[in-house]
């Protein structure tokens, strides 16, 4: 079955991002397709690359990125949420003249149209917030 997940929660501040990650890993493991991850609102912080997490703690951003790359998942950071929170991919970083992208390359900044597309092409949309 085709799933898309919408993630509204920043990592660490609530458990929701961690729950979403476990859910995503489990559905992929079961052979379902993860059509799209859509990070919205504070959820965009899950794609941040500039984070430093203690050795004995789970690094959610890195685990998201590894999952996305391993399974070639389409991962979208909502542009309106991302800009005001400073999570920028290469393109946006260049456009706004920051020296460096702050988002993992595994995710791409795009608009809400990608959410609508996910709704239309997925059997299930599951929200984590």
């Amino acid at each position, binding site marked *: 079955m085709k799933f898309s997940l919408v993630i509204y929660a920043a990592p660490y501040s609530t458990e929701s991002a961690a729950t979403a990650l*476990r*859910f995503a890993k*489990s559905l992929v493991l*079961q052979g379902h397709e993860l059509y799209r991850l859509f990070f919205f609102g504070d959820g965009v912080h899950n794609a941040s690359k500039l984070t430093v997490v203690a050795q004995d703690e789970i690094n959610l951003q890195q685990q998201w990125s590894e999952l996305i790359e391993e399974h070639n998942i389409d991962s979208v950071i909502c542009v309106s949420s991302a800009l005001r929170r400073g999570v920028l991919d290469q393109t946006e970083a260049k456009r706004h003249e920051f020296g460096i992208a702050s988002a993992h390359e595994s995710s791409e900044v795009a608009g809400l149209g990608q959410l609508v597309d996910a709704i239309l092409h997925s059997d*299930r949309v599951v*929200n984590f917030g």
Partner: protein
Amino acid sequence: MSSLHTINRSPDSNLLESCIKVVSAGDAILFIEDGVYYCNSPIKLKTITETVKVYGLREDMLTRATLAKTMDSVEAIDTARFVELCCEHDKVVSWF
């Protein structure tokens, strides 16, 4: 069509009370994260377990040390089963 409702905050949130008002016969409720504290509250769950199937996420119960006192009317499930439940119902409604 049936819905799986997830609830992720403690009983103080009154999320279940909101959910119950709009639940349909054949729906199911899954308590996750801080929502699992509902599973130890006979008063909060009394009426609902008669009309819909109620689940709790085992990982969150283990973490919080609430599994042992979870009510019999609640089925503890793992994340893999959570994914299956999403498939078995036509949609997922998240209460957070």
